[in-house]
Structure formats: C-alpha cells, structure tokens
C-alpha cells in the first residue's frame, strides 16, 4: 500500500449515542486506487463513510476515537471542508433532489466550487460519462428510473471535482445490466484519476473493481487484503460470494483479528450476492 498519502482512517471508533457502530477500524485508500469495503447490512459501512464525509452528526453519531486524514492532514468533520478538500460522498439510496431538475441537481453538486470554468469542465465530463443526463436536463430527478438516479447521484458528486469519491452501495436495487454499467463507469472515473472508496454488498462486483478490500463485520475489520486474494479466499467465497454451504463457525482469514466477544454468530444469508 505504498503511494502518496490518500485517505487514511486509523483506529476509528464511532458511536450513535450509546450504540457502538465502529471500533478500531483502520482503512487506507492510496491515491489513484479503488478500495472496496464489504459487509452485511448493519456492519458499519455507511457509518464509515459518514465519519469521512462529516455527516455523522445528522444521525446523532460521532467519532469517539481515531482519526481520518486525507493527503496527510486531518479532516475535521465538517462536510463542507471535506468537499473543499476533494473528498465527496455519493450517499446510500442515491438521494437525488427529486423536486429539482437534472440540471439543477448537477448545479447543486457544484455549489462548493467557485471557479466557473471548473464547473463547466466538470459538467462536460459528467455529460460524456452519462450522455442520458445531457439529453434530459429539464427532467425532474424524481421521475428518473433507479439506474438513472444512481447515475445522476454519481454525476452530481463529480461536479465537485473530487479527488476521492466515496460510493455507498451504488448498485443496490439495480438490475444486473444497470449494475454492470455503473461498475464500468466507476472504473472509468477511476481511470480519469479519481480515487474511489467503494462500499458494497455486491462483493463480486466490488472485488472485480478494487485493488484492495476490507470486510467489515459488526463494526470491525474482520478481513482485509488484496482484492484478488480475498476473492479467492474460502471464507469470502462462502460468505460473500454465495459459493459453498454456510456454516456457523467463526470467520478465519487473511489478517482477521476476531472481536473478543464474538461468539458464534448466526449465519447471514446474502441472497443478492450472486451478481
């Protein structure tokens, strides 16, 4: 994991009031990389992204220990500051501004950018990545299909010229064709120079895109390693790629530091993970 200082999350703990959602989480996204974070529902993936983008307070949560830094200096937990530093999150569930038009949504994405020529450049880039958005600038975002809304949500984030894009389950609820298209676009965005932290339940898709991956379980990193290694590991294949039969034994795997209180957990069946 060499390379310039990208996103570095060290020893992160997050609580929502008394509820602990993350503990001792260490995740690194080198500049230029795609890094995946996998995990079942409730594992803490979204919480991790909120801690980076500074939106925990919207959920009455907060970082209780650890640090998040980008480019070698700390992110102070204000969303506007994160955006200004080039760290931009695409929220779970797309969250387009439904009452606004496609063009207005894109404009909203650029609200943190002062330089008009940069905004124009970003718009050109977004329109070439997603031609459908260029075709329908005046359509209400709420009337787009799910896949189109996901495109708009990613496009809106790109309007801020991010150097680090945080994606929260971008293929959730999309048909396989559309999911594949989103995946291809994420690869393209990365090839244009944007680092990506990709949160997914769709492990097959995420491991295909990422160079490195982490598996979160109940708020802790249970596994991590190069994506290819994880994709080949029995544990991940069985539990996250829907290969083999589920068992009730504890996770074992590359770099697994099992949580002390982890008694045998019920096996989560993850029917979607067959993409």
């Amino acid at each position, binding site marked *: 994991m060499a390379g310039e200082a990208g996103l570095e999350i060290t020893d992160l703990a997050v609580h929502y009031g008394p509820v602990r959602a993350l503990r001792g989480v260490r995740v690194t996204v080198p500049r230029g990389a795609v890094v995946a974070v996998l995990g079942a529902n409730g594992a803490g993936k979204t919480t991790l992204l909120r801690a980076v983008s500074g939106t925990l307070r919207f959920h009455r949560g907060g970082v209780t220990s650890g640090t998040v830094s980008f480019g070698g200096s700390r992110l102070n937990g204000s969303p506007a500051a994160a955006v200004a530093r080039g760290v931009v999150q695409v*929220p779970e569930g797309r*969250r387009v501004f439904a009452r606004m038009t496609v063009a207005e949504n894109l404009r909203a994405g*650029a609200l943190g950018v002062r330089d008009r020529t940069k905004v124009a450049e970003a718009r050109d880039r977004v329109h070439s990545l997603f031609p459908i958005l260029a075709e329908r600038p005046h359509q209400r975002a709420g009337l787009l299909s799910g896949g189109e809304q996901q495109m708009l949500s990613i496009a809106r984030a790109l309007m801020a010229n991010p150097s680090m894009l945080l994606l929260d389950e971008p293929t959730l609820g999309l048909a396989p064709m559309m999911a594949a298209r989103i995946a291809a676009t994420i690869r393209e965005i990365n090839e244009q120079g944007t680092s990506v932290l990709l949160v997914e339940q769709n492990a097959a898709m995420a491991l295909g895109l990422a160079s490195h991956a982490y598996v979160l379980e109940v708020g802790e990193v249970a596994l991590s390693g190069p994506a290819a290694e994880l994709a080949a590991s029995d544990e991940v294949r069985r539990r996250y790629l829907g290969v083999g039969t589920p068992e009730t034994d504890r996770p074992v795997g590359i770099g697994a530091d099992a949580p002390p209180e982890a008694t045998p957990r019920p096996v989560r069946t993850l029917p979607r993970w067959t993409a």
Partner: protein
Amino acid sequence: MTTFLELLVNGISVGAVYALIALGFVVIFKATEVVNFTHASLLLAGGFLVAKLHPALGFWLALAAGVAGAALVGALIEFLIIRRARVGSHGVLAIVTIGVDILLTTELTREIGTDVLALGDPWRDQVLHLGPIMIAETRVVALGVAAALITAFLLAFKFTGWGVAMRATAEDAETAALMGVRLGRVSLSAWAVAGALAAIAALFLCVFPTPGLDRSTTAAAMKAFPAAILGGLDSTTGALAGGLIVGVTEALMSGYQSQLAFLGRGIGDAAPFLVMIAILLFRPAGIFGTKELARV
C-alpha cells in the same frame, strides 16, 4: 360593482403585503424546518426602526435602516438562539421562537407605549381615481413593490446559486451538506431575508389608511400565518396564493360587513383564520404543499 372593485383591488394589495410576510415565513421553514413565530416581532422591529429614524434620516434612509435592522435581528435570532438550541425536534424550536417573539414584542410595545407612530412615507393620504374607482396611493405602491419583490425573490430562488442551495437544503439537508453547502449560512440567509421582507411589509401595513405603527400592528402581521399555512408551509407559490386569498377575503368580508351582520361584527379580522381552517379541512398540506415526487 364599484364597491366590489375597490374592495378587490384593496384586498389584492393588502394580500400582496401578506404574501411578503408569508414568503419570509416559508423561506425559513424550507431552509430550517422551523415554524418561525418571531415573524410578527421582526416586522414590528422593522417598522419601529423606520418610525424612530425617519425624522432624523428622512424616509428613504430610515426605510433602508429598518430593512437592514430587521434583517440583522432575524440573523441574530438564528445565530444566537436557533443555531445553538441543540434540541431534538423542530417542534421545540418553534416553541423557542414563540418565547423570543414574546420577549421582542413585549420590549417593543413597551417602547411604543400608547403612541401611534407615523412612518413618514411620501404617499400620505393621497387617493388615486381610476375611473369610478378610488384607491389609496399607498395601496398601489404596496402592490407594485410587493409584486416586484416577490418576482425578484422567485427568480433568485429558481436561478441563483443561493436559490439552488436553499432548495437543495429544503429537500434534503444532509445531502446538501454533502455537496459542500454550508447549512449554517443557508439558515442565516433565510432569517435575514425574512427579516428584510417583514420590514417592507411593516411599512405597508402601517401607512394610510392605517393610522400608523402601534401595538396592534402585530395583530395585522399575524394574518400572514394563515396565509402561509393555507398555501402550504413549504411552498413559495403557496405563500403568494395564501397572501392574496387572505387579503381579498378580509377586504370583502369587512366591506360587506353590514350584509354579513349575522356572522357578528369584526368578521373581517377572523376571516383569514376561517378560510385557513376551511382549506386545511380539504387539503391538509395546504393548497400547494408538496406531495412526494421521488420514486424509490
């Protein structure tokens, strides 16, 4: 017929002024989801400044000072109280604004005492004759100014970065924050704009044929609440429609009071609230209140 036309024009003109107040109310609600009950005292503060300053500064400067002053009071309320009140629910914040309103109004009415303060406007009690219709010049000016301000406001809301930030925040504050929108600034600007609009409204509520600014001015300002609510609390179009409905109803009910004697005297003052209740019975979200468009 002439009476009817006069009443109608007067109603529209007063309605446009109510719409100004309601617009500020709606902007605050959209940006912060707070139902702002300090609105009447913001209005009183703006009018009070104009009344006190015009002898020294002249009318126009005093008006500018009143507008700036009310905007500042609005911004201060946001910055010192609303932003810091880390309460869980917007309902609690609304009650906080009632407290602030009582404080401000009490202090201002103490200052005003039993006086009726003139605002020193240049239109005085002149009356325009449009064919058979007679209408106070102040009403014509009110209508023109309110229409211009509302138009400017709606254009800004639709086309400027400020407007986009405002609407994005209204729809989904967390996601707006993810776009780099500073919610504190959005909220502050909403309160300041509301204050400024309230001060302009204060002027037109206190000029001829009203004798001037006195302690009952807040009661007039209160009529903008039903205007905002019946239009739909989160709709700028609704504020406009609500203002006009309330203004016209009030004018007609007062004008035809003698024919409506069976409803009791003073029906004109109660009319806005009656209309509000009637409309809410059929459209609980107000006439233009939003229905969710999102496809999930």
